[in-house]
Each structure stands twice: as structure tokens, then as C-alpha cells.
């Protein structure tokens, strides 16, 4: 029996749609453009805001320097690990720049740079990676959720927070960041679906940097683009050149505006590339060739902007030098901060598990206290 011969397979059974069925929206306006949106090097660059672009430039240079410093600190053993965003700085910086003070950022483990660009102290941003506490900072201070290591699990949080803010009548947008690998996780799907059903003021920023550790995008998804996934949830999907900060800023700003004005969520796929390895524990030569990396280096986010701005006379040598100087100052402060030994109190291990400590934890805390006192006593004897 062929499929065509199966009962129910005949055209006569499909002549009328089931009752009350109709497509909810026309998918066409939700579909992403086939090519990533670009501004730099195109006629669209005519309308660039010089002041905004100079700020973007300074932030990009600072971001690149931050990446370099953090990587160096890893080699010196000051950080346990650092997932670099070299090559992805435009995504990180734009994400931080498009948000208002009352908005919230939900970063993944790779997005320390976005958190720093939003104002998180660079040393505090690295607490997790140095290993003295799990994230540790107060999320309410800068409205930055804790850096999330499990993939895509922070996305439903962004939806819930944005939903709660809207229920309260507050003007708050949540921007949630995730990588290409994270789009395969169930939480990505659930967050997108909740956001669309609730019309929550959320922007999902997917940084497609080519690899989930070693697995290339082609083995991650069979979708035409990741941005296409948005359509199935009933929200617009946008494809943008993630190395073009002008394009990133424009597309993200538009999505934030839509969310703020009650237009619901947007999903943005930023096409970019992870120039460095996943972390210092990774050997990228095992899964990709130099030629590919070199090609992407030629599409560097800082160079793209620098070329555009200098050609238009919006940036000169002095401006470039100013950006470099500011970045060096940040790096020096970061080095100083990271070279100072963190002051740790082992008793803090028990301090933040419950609002009120349980008997069990009090007992275990007493045990550790006794061990610490004994060790101190021994040291005292030895001197």
C-alpha cells in the first residue's frame, strides 16, 4: 500500500479546511531578508549619525582591548577561562548601547563585554571567570541578569521579566542574548513562543558566530537562516551583518522601539564570526581552516567602521588615538583590579543559600569554622 492509497490520504478528504481554521497572520512581513542587512560601505551610510558612530568606534576599540586583556589574564592564570568575543564586538556593544537605563540585559556566558559596555565594573564582570563567586554582582544595580552558563535558559527569564514589567505598566524592554548553538535548545523555543503569545517587550539577539564550540552551523540547523525561526512563532525575524555596528545599532534600535511601543518581540540573527577559539581550553585548528578565519578577519568590525568614518572625514588620527588611549586606560585598570588578590571569606559559602539558614547549614558552617580556626592556630604555631 502506498501513501496515496492510505485511507484519508485522498484529495477528497482535503477539499475543505477543518472548521474555524484560518492562518493567523500573513507570514510575509515577518520573513527576514535573504541577505544580512548592511549599512557600512553602502549608500545607507549617508545617513549615519557622526556623534553616535564616533561613540561606537571608541566602544569597539575598548571592547577589542578588553578581549585582549581578558585573554592575557587567562594565560597568566588570573582567569580560569575566558570565552572571547574578538570579531563579535559590534554585536556586544550595540546590544548594550540600544538599551535605556530602565531596560534589562540578559547575557550568556560569552557576553561579558556587553555587560561591561552597559556599565558593569570590568572586574566584577570577570568574577565568575576568575572563580571567586558564581557571577556575584547585584543584577538590579545595572539591570543586568547574571551571566548564564546553561545555554538559552536565560531567555525565558527575559520574557518573564518583560511580561511582569508590562503588567505593572512600566516602560521596560528586555534584550536577551544567545549563540547559534543555543537556538537548538528547548528553552530557546519556549522563550520565543511565550514572548510571542504574550506579546512581551523582548528582543532576542542571536549571535551566529559560526560554531557551537566545534560544531558548525550546518550541523546545528537545517533552517535557511536562524532568523527564519522567528516566523514560526509569529514574530519578525531580522538578518543583519553582525560585524557592521551601524546596521546592528539600527536593527536593534528598531526592535527595541517596537517592543517599547507594544509591538511585541523580535528575533535578530547577527551573522558574525568567532575569530578566537571557544575558550583557552579549545583547539580551533581541529575543526576549521586558516583561510576561513583570515577571510573573516578581513571583515573586521573595527576596520569596517574606521574605513567608513575616515573616508567620510568623520574620524581622524587624533580620534583614533583618543580611542586607543581610553582603551589602554581601561586595560590598565582591569589589570590592576585583577592582580589584586580577591578577599574571600569561606563562611560566605553558607550565607546565601536560604533567607534563613537551616539547622543543617548552621551545623556545617560550624564545622568549617572549626577547621579554619584550627588551620589558623597551626599557622600561628609554625611562625
Amino acid at each position: 500500500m502506498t501513501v496515496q492509497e492510505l485511507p484519508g490520504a485522498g484529495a477528497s478528504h482535503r477539499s475543505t479546511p477543518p472548521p474555524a481554521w484560518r492562518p493567523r497572520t500573513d507570514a510575509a512581513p515577518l520573513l527576514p531578508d535573504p541577505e544580512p542587512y548592511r549599512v557600512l560601505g553602502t549608500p545607507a551610510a549617508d545617513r549615519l549619525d557622526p556623534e553616535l558612530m564616533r561613540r561606537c568606534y571608541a566602544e569597539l576599540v575598548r571592547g577589542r582591548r578588553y578581549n585582549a586583556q581578558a585573554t592575557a589574564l587567562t594565560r597568566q592564570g588570573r582567569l580560569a577561562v575566558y570565552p572571547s568575543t574578538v570579531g563579535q564586538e559590534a554585536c556586544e556593544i550595540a546590544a548594550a548601547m540600544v538599551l535605556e537605563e530602565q531596560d534589562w540585559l540578559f547575557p550568556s556566558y560569552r557576553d561579558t563585554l556587553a555587560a561591561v559596555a552597559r556599565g558593569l565594573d570590568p572586574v566584577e564582570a570577570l568574577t565568575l571567570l576568575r572563580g571567586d563567586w558564581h557571577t556575584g554582582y547585584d543584577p538590579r544595580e545595572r539591570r543586568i541578569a547574571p551571566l548564564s552558563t546553561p545555554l538559552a535558559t536565560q531567555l525565558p527569564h527575559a520574557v518573564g521579566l518583560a511580561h511582569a514589567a508590562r503588567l505593572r505598566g512600566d516602560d521596560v524592554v528586555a534584550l536577551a542574548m544567545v549563540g547559534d548553538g543555543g537556538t537548538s535548545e528547548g528553552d530557546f523555543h519556549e522563550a520565543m513562543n511565550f514572548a510571542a503569545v504574550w506579546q512581551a517587550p523582548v528582543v532576542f539577539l542571536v549571535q551566529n558566530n559560526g560554531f557551537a564550540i566545534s560544531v558548525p552551523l550546518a550541523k546545528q540547523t537545517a533552517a535557511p537562516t536562524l532568523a527564519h525561526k522567528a516566523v514560526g512563532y509569529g514574530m519578525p525575524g531580522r538578518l543583519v551583518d553582525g560585524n557592521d555596528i551601524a546596521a546592528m545599532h539600527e536593527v536593534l534600535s528598531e526592535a527595541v522601539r517596537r517592543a517599547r511601543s507594544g509591538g511585541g518581540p523580535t528575533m535578530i540573527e547577527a551573522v558574525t564570526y568567532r575569530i578566537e577559539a571557544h575558550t583557552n581550553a579549545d583547539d580551533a585548528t581541529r575543526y576549521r581552516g586558516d583561510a576561513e578565519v583570515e577571510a573573516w578577519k578581513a571583515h573586521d568590525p573595527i576596520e569596517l567602521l574606521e574605513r567608513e568614518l575616515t573616508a567620510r572625514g568623520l574620524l581622524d588620527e587624533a580620534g583614533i588615538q583618543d580611542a586607543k588611549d581610553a582603551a589602554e586606560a581601561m586595560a590598565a585598570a582591569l589589570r590592576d583590579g585583577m592582580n589584586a588578590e580577591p578577599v574571600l571569606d569561606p563562611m560566605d559559602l553558607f550565607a546565601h543559600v536560604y533567607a534563613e539558614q537551616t539547622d543543617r547549614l548552621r551545623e556545617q558552617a560550624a564545622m568549617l569554622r572549626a577547621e579554619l580556626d584550627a588551620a589558623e592556630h597551626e599557622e600561628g604555631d609554625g611562625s
Partner: protein
Amino acid sequence: MTTVAVKPAITKPATMAQALNRAMRDAMAEDPAVHVMGEDVGALGGVFRITDGLAKEFGEDRCTDTPLAEAGILGAAVGMAMYGLRPVVEMQFDAFAYPAFEQLISHVAKMRNRTRGAMPLPITIRVPYGGGIGGVEHHCDSSEAYYVATPGLTVVTPATVEDAYGLLRASIASDDPVIFLEPKRLYWSKADWSPEAPAAVPGIGKALVRRTGTSATLITYGPSLPVCLEAAEAAREEGWDLEVVDLRSLVPFDEETVVASVRRTGRAVVVHESGGFGGPGAEIAARITERCFHHLEAPVLRVTGFDIPYPPPMLEKHHLPGVDRILDTVARLQWEN
């Protein structure tokens, strides 16, 4: 001489389901930050009708039917709590909560700790749990061992109508995430109870002696409490006077009440539906042994569900701890080597 007539509090038979419903209603009425959410909690009032009428009374924004996705429900609740709400989440059945475990373990249980106390998450997660209702696969798990093994979670389970109300109010008021395990086979159990003047019950973290006795202590919670009380009655015929302790709260665990009871009776049996290996009873037995060794007349024994996947409904009666199995175990406490 004048006398003042004192009217007794008006009580009428109420079910555990009604008490739970009332607890949410009262909490929502008192605090606009309390939001109930989950699959089917709105128009339907939940598959067990525990949220009946809440959407009508407080609106769909306060009692929300979510998409069918447990990780999404709990994940969204995390974000809502981060913004200052107090979500009360319904996981429709015990085993339906498993897709949400990543959210629960990686985020819900750890948010306070990760943020050095800056971001507590006051989320109540209601989980109808346990067997004895003839439910098919995935509808009868006793999942408490997973929860009690996760630091940062408070785990409570009422066994009486009064506690259903009192403990749920306390859970919603808690600034920490609480796993609120509802013994679904007791949903329709009744007691004289007045929602207008609910009896004050001890809060989270206190165990209660439900029946005093001298021969041995039965330590139990949730769905096994009525079984233990029945066993204690039956044991009188054998000449055994059993004390029954209802834990009410698995985390924090009220060790003092348990230890005091076992030191009085010298014998202990822990009873629960979930499997024995790595179950809460293993921990409780270990603690009793550590603290009551010289008071014990016999080893601490356990009556638990078997270490098997929850059985099909037609076989569950062989799995669940019943009166006979408890009595047989109590008989072994004579301990004459």
C-alpha cells in the same frame, strides 16, 4: 452574674483542594504581587480544580493560562520574580515537572546564591505528587528525592486540610523558592475547617507529632500520613502504641522533633511512597542513627515504595506502603537478632 456566650468558630467540612484554593485566593487578595500561572489554571481551574475561580476573580493577568511548556513556565516565573512578583506556578503532575528541572536546578535554586543574596526568588512551585489515584504512567511519581537533593530549595508537603492552607500561605510568603508537594490522593480528604477563621498552624520547618505513643515512632509525610495513622490504630490490637510524626517540611528538616520522639520510644520506622534507595528515608534514618544510637532498641527501618519505575495503575497497590507492610515492619522492631 452575666455570662457571655462564646460562639465556637464556624467550621464545616472542607477538602484539601478547597483549602489550597482558598490559600491562593487570600494571598492574591492581600498582595497584588502574587500571580498564579500554569497550564489549564485559568478557565478550567486546573485539572484538579485547585485554581478554580481565580482567573474570574483576579483576571487573566493574575491567573494565567500559559503555553504548554514547563521549562518556559518556570523560566518565565524566574523573570517575573526578578521583577518583584511572587509567582505561584502549577506543574500539572509530578512527572510533568521534569522538563523544568534545568530551570529549577540551575536558576531557581541558585539565584540567591549566585547574586550573593541580592536577588532572592520568591516562587512557589505547586506539584501534585504521589500515587494511589489510578493514574496512568507519568501521573503518579513521588519526586521528592530530586528536590531535597537540591540546595536552595525549600520542600514542604501538607497532609491535612489545615496544613494545606497554612503551609501554602507560608510558602507564598517565603522569600525563597518553595517546592510545594501536594499529595493528590488527599485532595478530596475532608476536615472540619473554616476558611473564615483558619486555624493557625506552625510554619515551614516544623514537624508535628500527630499521635503520641510509646512503643515506636512512625516518621512520615504527605500521602503516607493517613496510612500511618491507620496502621497505628491497627497496631493497638497487637499491643503496640505507636507515635506518628508528620514531617510537613522535608527541607528544612525538623531533626529535633524527630530525635526527641525516637529517644522517647527507642524505635523508628520511616514511611514514604518514593523509592527507598537515596530516598528521604535514607537520610532520616542516618540522622536518627547518628543522634539516637544509644537510645535505639532496634535498627531504624524503612517502608518505602519499591525501587522501580512507578507501576501501572492496576499494580500500584502492591507498590505503595500500606497498613500491612507497615505493621510487618513494626513487628521486626522487636529485634531479637
